[in-house]
């Protein structure tokens, strides 16, 4: 390790690796954006990156050096020896944009990464600082890419048509001249595939689930958190244990029971079964919050002649509105995303929820853009709610749920 801690070793190595990362990123980004041929030249990346790293260590990291570096990379790419190689049919403008992207991003990012690297021997602090900055940069690119690419593919596929998709699977550019024609699969889903009904079903089932869950969980959580009774500790523990029973194990007898009682294929059957899957986690989250509330306020209420139930209604609940919001959101998310029970218990296309509706689109006769448009329809509302209320959501998730 100590051999690595020399400016002339660390600089070129980090420079070369960083160049490879950026070259791969730019090649993938440009391919996905234009559908034209871009690929990273690993060998050239290593060579130019190492030279850039060495140069920065030797020449210092002033503005002119940084600018010169960017220009050099752009020029190299345009003459065809750059870190990102292009196919013969790639248009000049796409090539130029790629070169610009790579040159500027590399120039702007390698300088801070190699900030403290000096030509001679490095201290551990300087060396590890540089490695950490390198890893941080890599981390941001990596995570953003892995999170965004599937969603990007989902949205873009839904806007294409079958022949475009098969012709060039990489081409996700949008032809804006098509106008409203772009949203044809969405239009067809709502007009021919009943997705309006599914959306309504999912929404009403989720909202009902939230209310029923709260109606059960609030009194239960209060009892576990505040009241003394025998078996309290055992009870609060077994709540979590219940949550460990896998749904598929329960789904089988539930399927049999529902088949026999005729609750299969009914809206109310689903409304009955969803809350039970969410009550334990809601109860667990709420009792944690109730425990944190000061008991003195409630005792004051009791002294002033309120009954326990009135104390809950007039004191505890108003105080725990934020927790109720978190729990509601989380329960809503579970109900909205639930797939297994909906898949097993619903066969009638007029009663589908969104997730069940999407599953029914997964057939070879229905084009894939419909499947993706359905996925977008199911994803967008929950994302919108989530982003709007992100604070509650994060709190709710950490408050007591590790369920997945």
């Amino acid at each position, binding site marked *: 390790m100590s051999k690595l801690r020399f400016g002339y070793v660390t600089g070129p190595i980090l420079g070369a690796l960083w160049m490879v990362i950026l070259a791969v990123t730019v090649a993938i980004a440009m391919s996905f954006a234009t559908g034209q041929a871009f690929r990273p030249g690993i060998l050239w990346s290593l060579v130019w990156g190492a030279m850039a790293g060495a140069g920065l260590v030797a020449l210092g990291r002033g503005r002119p050096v940084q600018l010169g570096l960017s220009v050099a990379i752009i020029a190299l790419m345009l003459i065809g020896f750059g870190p990102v190689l292009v196919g013969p049919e790639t248009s000049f403008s796409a090539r130029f944009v790629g070169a610009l992207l790579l040159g500027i991003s590399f120039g702007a990012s390698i300088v801070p990464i190699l900030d403290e690297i000096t030509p001679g021997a490095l201290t551990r602090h300087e060396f590890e600082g540089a490695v950490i900055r390198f890893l941080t940069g890599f981390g941001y690119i990596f995570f953003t890419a892995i999170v965004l690419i599937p969603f990007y593919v989902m949205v873009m596929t839904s806007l294409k048509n079958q022949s475009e998709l098969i012709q060039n699977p990489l081409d996700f550019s949008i032809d804006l001249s098509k106008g409203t024609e772009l949203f044809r699969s969405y239009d067809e889903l709502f007009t021919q595939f009943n997705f309006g009904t599914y959306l309504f079903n999912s929404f009403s089932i989720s909202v009902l689930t939230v209310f029923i869950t709260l109606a059960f969980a609030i009194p239960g959580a209060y009892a576990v958190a505040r009241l003394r009774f025998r078996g309290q500790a055992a009870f609060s523990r077994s709540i979590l244990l219940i949550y460990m029973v896998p749904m598929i*194990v329960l789904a089988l007898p539930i399927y049999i029971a529902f088949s026999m009682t005729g609750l299969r294929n009914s809206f109310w059957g689903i409304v009955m079964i969803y809350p039970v899957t969410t009550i334990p986690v809601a109860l667990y989250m709420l009792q944690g919050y109730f425990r944190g509330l000061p008991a003195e306020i409630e005792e004051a209420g009791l002294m002033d002649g309120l009954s326990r139930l009135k104390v809950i209604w007039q004191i505890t609940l108003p105080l725990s509105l934020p927790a109720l919001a978190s729990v509601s959101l989380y329960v809503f998310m579970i109900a909205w995303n639930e797939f297994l029970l909906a898949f097993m218990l619903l066969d009638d296309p007029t009663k589908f929820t969104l997730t069940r509706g999407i599953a029914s689109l997964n057939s070879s006769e229905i084009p894939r853009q419909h499947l993706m448009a359905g996925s977008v329809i199911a994803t967008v509302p929950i994302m919108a709610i989530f982003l709007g209320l992100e604070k509650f959501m994060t709190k709710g998730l950490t408050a007591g749920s590790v369920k997945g």
Partner: protein
Amino acid sequence: MADVSPPISTGPLAKREARLAWGLLFPTIAAVALVVVLPLLAIFWISVKPVELGDLRAPEVVLREDIRGDYEAVGDKANIRYRLRNSSQEQPIKGVTLTDTLPEGLRVTGLDERCVLDGRSLNCDLGDWEPGFRENLMIPVVVEQAYVDLGLRPQDSPASTTGQSSNVLTNTTFTLDNFARIFNGDEFVEVLLVTLFYTVFGTIGALLVGLFAALLLNKSFKGQGILRGLYLFPYVAPVIAVAFAWLILFDPFSGSANALLLQMGVTSEAINFFGERPLALIMVTVFEIWRYFPLSFLFILARMQSIDSDMYEAADMDGASPFQQFWYLSVPQLLGILSVLFLLRFIWTFNKFDDIFLLTGGNAGTRTLTVNVYEQAFAISNIGAGAAVAVVIFGCLLAFSIFFLKYISREEGL
């Protein structure tokens, strides 16, 4: 002297409090018992029963009725035919009876000895039927004027049948075939190994990736909130939507991932990511990591932000390098949350069904125990075997839970 020690028995106030507590808890307990405990018991019951998917519908008498021969003019001889069969190939029906009202103007000339005719109403006692039994019951009749005039056919007044069949779910036939079947041979070992691979690597992978993400975001900068929200997307989105997005992204014929790899020269022919044997299992594990790293990331980040920053300053003064700080300060602080997360995620990954079911349907060597429940119960239509797998899962979970309870009491804060 009066006794001043505290009362030993519970006082009326405490009793009232306990009563209220149970009252408040009762709805939850009832609901959970109905939907969790009862099904669990049912699973044990079904796992020792020879139940197939078709047996869920009780066997019944299937009846078709028509009239054969000439029945256009007065004096024509015809037969009323009842075609009867037992709908089940496996189970008998006991005490089958048939009742029908014959139309006006058909004079019965001969009667099966099991039948009784009272005015126009026909009653037949057909006895016990073997599985798969079928019979044609013929009633010879002579057409009279009233029949021609009215034009009512025998089938216009539907006949009714009764019969008792024992339901395989409630009778007392027990079998261990289901267990023998699922434990049989290499298949079970493979399922177990696949489950183990998926669970262990999925859990550890999600923890490590989550730790990395948490380290990235454990500093305040502009846009940190946005990135945090963004990194939670995989977890928040409906599983069915993201699973299909992955399938389309990695499609062997027209997927972008393959197109990209081909273009970059990494591979010379398209890779069937979710269809080849070792690769499919790796892919579903990667999907599991991708989908659940946000959860570990969130928990680890929350814990990191509660670590006192003074310690890092002190370490800095003492000359500890960033890696040393991470290894000797952060990791010990995070060990508690990491171990709890590991246990919980381990159990949850073990229980995971939707993801693999949607991605591969359990094909190409990705069949885990949970997928096997579905496979046995619905694909092979053997509910009993499915329940037997479910019992095995439950046994494993019970073992995990003992572990878990030991740890959760230590880290109650979660």
